[in-house]
């Protein structure tokens, strides 16, 4: 859609996520982060990519770049089964509430995070949570790993129609982060 002369006349806001279709620049951005965090939500337990649960891809990403995990809802149990102990468990709005605070000590007690990745949060709730961070957390950047476009993030994957494309990106990301 072309933009109108006055930008405020579009959709619900004029600041939207950069759509990322390529794993290489994404991996670069993540690597640059000093204190990244990966927030994993319960959709990651239900969604499968070609037979493999999404949560396993997310765990691979966390391992590849040594990113601490915040498990929301009831994802903690599955993570433990996968041999991954999350650094923290919160509801998604609770972790976002903490992230809003630039002075927060972070999940590892080392200071607030500067880059937060999200995967497995349902789209409506996820976009609301990202809205909070977009408006109130200028000290950090956000990125989503689900197969939908989240306008309120800083970086988002596109709306994937084909599973393979999504899978390829996630695998590319894991490889790029190693």
């Amino acid at each position, binding site marked *: 859609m072309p933009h109108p002369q006055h930008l405020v006349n579009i959709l619900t*806001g004029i600041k939207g996520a950069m759509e990322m279709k390529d794993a290489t620049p994404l991996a670069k951005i993540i690597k640059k982060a000093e204190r990244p965090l990966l927030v994993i939500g319960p959709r990651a337990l239900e969604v499968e990519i070609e037979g493999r649960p999404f949560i396993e891809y997310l765990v691979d990403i966390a391992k590849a770049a040594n990113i601490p995990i915040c498990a*929301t*809802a009831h994802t903690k149990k599955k993570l433990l089964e996968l041999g991954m102990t999350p650094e923290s468990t919160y*509801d998604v709005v609770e972790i976002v509430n903490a992230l809003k605070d630039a002075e927060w000590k972070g999940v590892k007690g080392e200071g607030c995070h500067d880059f937060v990745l999200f995967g497995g949060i349902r789209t409506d709730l996820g976009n609301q949570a990202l*809205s909070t961070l977009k408006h109130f957390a*200028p000290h950090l950047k956000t990125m989503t790993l689900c197969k939908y476009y989240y306008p309120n993030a800083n970086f988002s994957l596109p709306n994937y129609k084909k599973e393979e494309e999504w899978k390829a990106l996630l695998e590319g990301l894991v490889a790029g982060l190693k």
Partner: protein
Amino acid sequence: MKGKRKKEEKEKIIRAEDEWEPIGHTPMPHVTDLRNWDRRLLETYKPFYAPFCDLCCLCTYGKCDLTGTNRGACGIDISAQQGRIVTLACCMGMSAHAGHAAHIIDYLIEKHGEDYPIDLGDQVNVECPNIRTVLGLKPKTLRDLKTAVQYAAEQLVHVVSSTHTGQEGDAVDYESKALHISMLDHVCMEAADVAQIIGFKFPTSVADTPLVDMGWGSIDRKKPVILVVGHNPASSSEIIDYLRNKGLEDKVEVAGICCTALETTRYSNKAKVVGPLSRQLFFVRAGIADVIVADEQCIRTDLTDEASKVGSVVIASSDKACRGLEEVSDKPTDEVVKAMVDKGEHCLILDHEKAAEVAVEAALKIAPKRKKEEPIDEKKAIELAKACAACGSCTQVCPNLLPVGPAIQKLAEGDAEPFKQVFENCIGCGKCEEACPHGVPIFKLMQAVASWDTWKCRVGRGPVMDTEIRKVGAPIVLGTIPGVIALVGCSNFPNEIDEIAEMVDEFARRKYIVVLTGCSAMTVGMRKDKEGKTIYEKYPGDFDAGGVVNIGSCVSNAHITGAAMKIANIFANLPLRANYEVIADYVLNRVGAVGVAWGAMSQKAASIATGCNRLGIPVVLGPHSAKYRRLYLSRKEEGDWTVMDGRKKELVDTEEPSPEHLAIVTESKERAMVMIAKLCIRKNDTQPGRQIKLNHYIDLYKKFFGTLPDDLHHFVRTERDIPMFFKKEVKQFLQEKGWKPKPVLSLPTLIGTYETEVPVEATIR
């Protein structure tokens, strides 16, 4: 507005000379009279905003982009704008109940006169705890209920005016206004429901209300069918009266959707409940109803179009929802009925007696003319499903992402269960059937499945009885009944039938007190256990440990806040009269009650929940409720948990984040259950009480998350709080966390921790 004359005016209205209780500090509070209480609450539970829209388009300076640090042309920032929108939503919600209350009270005054007395039976003396606490008035008649609503309406004008451009500009002040108007929502709901109970002689002072049939399998389609939709029982009760007077009660089916269904079953146990709001479109499209009588709130705006498609006629009966129809209130009944029968004309009738007469007469004439198809039986359904070629087209178009195709294929194999699941989450849009290239009548099959099952719903019973409060007050405050869980409001999103029913089952089994209202109250009846029993058949209807109580419709939500107030009054002997701060402080610190609005979508849900929050009752919301834009969250580690020890009059840092949040969204039912158990914890819990609460919290956490709660150390005050069953592992956990004992208070209060006229002594009786 302050001043001598205003004070005298209030004293006159609340009959200050009646000495039933001393008058507290805030009779008929004005918008800012409880502002300090709100600010104190929001100091701990700060507003958390998730803007749904970054722009504002409320005046012609805009649109303005409020992203981040941008401000509007009027100077407002994104936080205040969220507070403003939330305030507007609460005003809309409250006004729906105020409008309902004003209407029903006037209607009943027409019938019975202004002096018609309030009598809620021998078990309810504290008839209107909200009105008593907020206004300071002990209402005796319908006229007094009208007075309460008029006062609330005046406050509404002030609050709505604050949302005009260039008025309020601070987020917390907007929240205070939202809290004020939402507190008054409970006053209006109470006035409406108490008027209905006395005016229509709804059940009161009994726990064991009858079970009625639910689901459209329970409707006899061979009879003329009248469907009532909405929230206001004026027309539906007139319909029942008309049928009774004409001896037609067994000849015409009256079925309801949404709260009117609950109200109608309180009036006649022959009435049927079709189901919650989410079933509206589906049922209308099924064409089972001959006449649809719509009143107010949550009625589909395309109702007349949809009804026309299937040959049903609609009577709109509320000034709030005229729907572009011609008003025929003064035309002769015969003429109106004729137009309906011959031409399928819909109409607006604002005289309820007339609407009832027209509805029944029209239904009697229309029904024989309409060929209602017999529902397909299971054998036929399987046959029809066999036409499916597994192309997947239906699944692709379903807006609810339901697995329609696979369910049809299972049905073809003789397993109807998956298809029933699809039906439960289906909104009735009909897109799947349209998309099917092989002509499988998916929508018809869905209707068939729908008609195979019937369920039971317990009739709503109105206020919790004083005798019950006397019995459970102590165990609730001491903590040995671990909590009161109120599942309220709509249930409009996929999976909610199962999820709400599961939560109710879990907490009832654990001997919490579970109360239900509105669509949630119907929804829980729509699931059966292995023995074929619904929740209502499984658990007793008493307000006691392990009871599952249907309080009633949306307006009955006031009886839930009312019950919390009555605990303070009847058990703790605190006066209610114009004593809001003291009562809210009591509830916050000592009554382990939690509201759950799992499928909320309406503005009414916003004001109902926010009204609970001002009274100190935390609310857990379902995931899509993040779109309400605002929550009240604490930071358990960073927050200040200092309270006043009411006995010693000393400030004490309790280090205990209880209750942890006032309004929170949870992502899954599992998380919700864990959160609910945690939010029941109160500073006032005795040690045995705390043990019981922690036992459930730990048990649920382990069940769903696999470990001990990682914040458990915050809720253990001394070793005696540790549940026996988990003693060893908890002790080890505490040691790892470097836990130290915390103070235990018997009289925790916020009074004295902020600027207020209320003395600390007022919290003790």
